[in-house]
């Protein structure tokens, strides 16, 4: 059985009777994306055609998601590029002079010019960068405005340009059900003040799971904020979905079930296994991060946010939903080399927690695949390895905060504000390519529900000291991990392996 193992892969044996859940095969992509986009803009859901909303003399802002989506980054052209080109064509035809494009980063790192160019394409980049195409800065006091409070007391902030626009067109790519909808504007164009309203331990513990918006306290909060934003500014939402063709031809075996591997797939696997076993981590990282996913567009919807997002979720579920019967005592997961917050950087220990226990564990509807008190087993090398440019606050978080405690409530109370307001982290977030000072906290909070739910968490192949610092148990082999799990779940436990990525959403009966 193939297990992702950071920038590598492992072959493991699972106990007899183990259940393996595979992601569905990629859906057939739309043959003519440009036509589908034109159609969606011409006949939006519960809104007027985009063309009729554009007029000479208006202030138009186009906002779009950053490079944390999709994963791995999409092979050019990115679907957001195709959508934005169509919107800009319409704006040019209508004679809209005042147009700005903003990368909705939220508290993520600033992208490099080449990364922005990859998302928007050459034509948009050449025309607008850097005067009219730029990135959101959640710490610029002059570029953000406070809009008000929701009925639940959540503060709402928004990028000033967006707030002052006659129309904001948001171009989103929804890879997983957590993305899109009101969350796009409420986090992408907000400041720390607005984001902390839902990115906190209490809200995330109440999100069962945040991959299923109706059961997610996080999304309820974002919806309330989004409605306030809609009262302030006219928003035209465009959402796209892609299939789960996540790996290029060279790594196509990762896309298939092991029993379906051809001789070529087996040879590719063996080649990659030898390469990843022998090559130094930095070299492997460069090779892995150069991979571009040949995603295909499966749906594009435009119009009013809620109407669009309902359709989008339907399309996403059609691609990634898998029916799973009942819960299990042990869940095994291979943590891959890439998560939303380490594009072109190593996955540091905090991000391993975020990816494995935050994201992968939460890919369920109704109830987790793992029973309450069960054992979650992850495979990842989990090295003490940080990118000083992208993750400076993560280094301090690991060295200072996790050395003190792993209790998320205490961490939030004691440290979050100090990190968020640290002038050096603020400076790096604004001027360099660093994640915000509060970001390592959020990355850790994502795992709050998983940590709370699991009786034990074991990381196989991880550096012992690092795994212990994270508050988990370390095992050298999967057999050892099963042996250790017996202490929690007893002899002869039921085991389920979730073979992700490509991603899937377990619909647990």
């Amino acid at each position: 059985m193939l297990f992702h193992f950071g920038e590598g892969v492992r072959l493991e044996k699972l106990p007899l009777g183990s259940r393996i859940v595979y992601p569905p095969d990629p859906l057939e992509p739309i043959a003519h994306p440009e036509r589908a986009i034109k159609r969606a803009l011409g006949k939006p859901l519960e809104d007027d055609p985009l063309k009729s909303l554009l007029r000479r003399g208006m202030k138009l802002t186009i906002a779009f998601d950053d490079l944390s989506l999709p994963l791995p980054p999409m092979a050019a052209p990115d679907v957001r590029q195709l959508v934005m080109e169509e919107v800009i064509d319409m704006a040019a035809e209508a004679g809209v002079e005042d147009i700005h494009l903003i990368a909705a980063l939220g508290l993520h790192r600033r992208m490099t010019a080449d990364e922005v160019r990859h998302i928007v394409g050459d034509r948009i980049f050449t025309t607008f960068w850097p005067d009219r195409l730029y990135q959101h800065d959640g710490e610029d006091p002059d570029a953000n405005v406070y809009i008000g409070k929701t009925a639940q007391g959540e503060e709402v902030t928004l990028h000033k340009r967006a707030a002052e626009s006659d129309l904001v067109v948001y171009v989103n790519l929804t890879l997983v059900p957590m993305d899109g909808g009101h969350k796009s504007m409420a986090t992408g164009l907000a400041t720390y003040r607005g984001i902390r309203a839902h990115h906190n331990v209490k809200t995330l513990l109440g999100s069962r799971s945040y991959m299923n918006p109706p059961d997610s306290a996080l999304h309820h909060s974002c919806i309330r904020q989004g409605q306030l934003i809609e009262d302030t500014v006219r928003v035209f939402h465009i959402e796209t979905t892609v299939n789960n063709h996540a790996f290029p031809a060279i790594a196509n075996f990762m896309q298939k079930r092991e029993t379906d591997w051809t001789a070529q797939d087996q040879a590719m696997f063996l080649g990659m296994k030898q390469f990843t076993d022998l090559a130094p981590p930095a070299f492997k990282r460069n090779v892995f991060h150069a991979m571009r996913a040949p995603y295909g567009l499966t749906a594009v919807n435009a119009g009013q946010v809620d109407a669009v997002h309902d359709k989008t979720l339907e399309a996403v579920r059609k691609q990634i939903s898998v029916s799973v019967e009942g819960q299990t005592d042990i869940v095994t997961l291979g943590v891959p080399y890439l998560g939303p917050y380490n594009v072109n950087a190593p996955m540091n220990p905090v991000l391993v927690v975020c990816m494995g226990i935050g994201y992968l564990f939460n890919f369920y509807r109704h109830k987790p695949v793992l029973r309450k008190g069960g054992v979650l087993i992850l495979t990842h090398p989990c090295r003490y390895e940080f990118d000083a440019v992208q993750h400076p606050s993560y280094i301090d978080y690991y060295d200072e905060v996790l050395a003190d405690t792993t209790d998320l409530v205490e961490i939030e109370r004691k440290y979050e504000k100090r990190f968020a307001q640290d002038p050096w982290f603020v400076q790096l977030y604004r001027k360099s390519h660093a994640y915000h000072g509060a970001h390592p906290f959020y990355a850790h909070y994502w795992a709050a529900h998983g940590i709370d739910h699991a009786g034990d968490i074991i990381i196989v192949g991880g550096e012992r000291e690092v795994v212990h610092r994270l508050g988990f148990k370390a095992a050298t082999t999967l057999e050892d991990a099963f042996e250790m799990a017996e202490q929690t779940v007893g002899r002869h436990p039921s085991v389920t392996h979730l073979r992700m990525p490509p991603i899937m959403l377990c619909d647990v009966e």
Partner: protein
Amino acid sequence: MPWYSGDRGPTRLTGVIGDAVHDLQRVRRAWHWDSPRPHTWPERGVVVPTPASDLGWARQEPVRTIRYLIQHGLLLPFTEVMSHPKVEGREWVRELERPVIFAANHSSHADTSLILHALTDRARDRTVVAAAADYWFKRPMLGNLVSLFLNTFPFSRTGGAQGQLHSSSQLLKSGWNLVLFPEGSRSLDGRIQEFKPGVGHLANETGTPVVPVHIRGAHRIMPKGQKLPLPAPARVRIGKPMTPLVKEGSREFTARVEKAVRQLSEEPRQPELQGSWIERWRALKPRELTYGED
């Protein structure tokens, strides 16, 4: 006839050799090997001047392919490393439907490389650079070498230039873009000098659009008098193509081009010269491929 008659044999052979030596001595004596040319005589070549070469070989295959390789292997990477040029307005020269004249300010030998670096491959391949005939082509070897690298052609800047303007217009008419430095020579301090009216005359005569180009920073790379380049950042700002207005004289049009180049040097973007976003967006529209196209 007896052998001693004197008409044949060794006697005749001796006579022939003697004659030849005599002739050689006469010629040698008559030839002014090292004596100066009498100053009263007219200058050689002035009365019947040799026609200036327009270096047509440099615009033919296989020289074009060799130049492509030289530029992509040496010139462009070197320019990138030395100055990492920032280019604005490349959209205006991306898809040129007809030849244009690039009129740029001139403060350094690095100007030409920076302009060529700023052009697209398609435009660069069809671009010739006007190089001062009295500077670059004084030594034929140097002139030919520079032509091989940069596709230059000799351009007289010393007046009486009808012939040169004629050859320039011939190049434009045969589909070549032309890089001109209308200031005539490099500025000493980096400031823009007055433009000479040749550019307006050429544009008027051939109906060719002029693309104003401003280069900032080249002066720091290789100012006049410096032999070797130094690394320094540069920016090339390309404006919208300009065409002479109806009844606009050459001097008036040149003045307008000069004003445009001066305005391009100013810090914020110049939408009236660089185009509104809508104009630039349209200029960047991908070409629609038609059957039979490469």
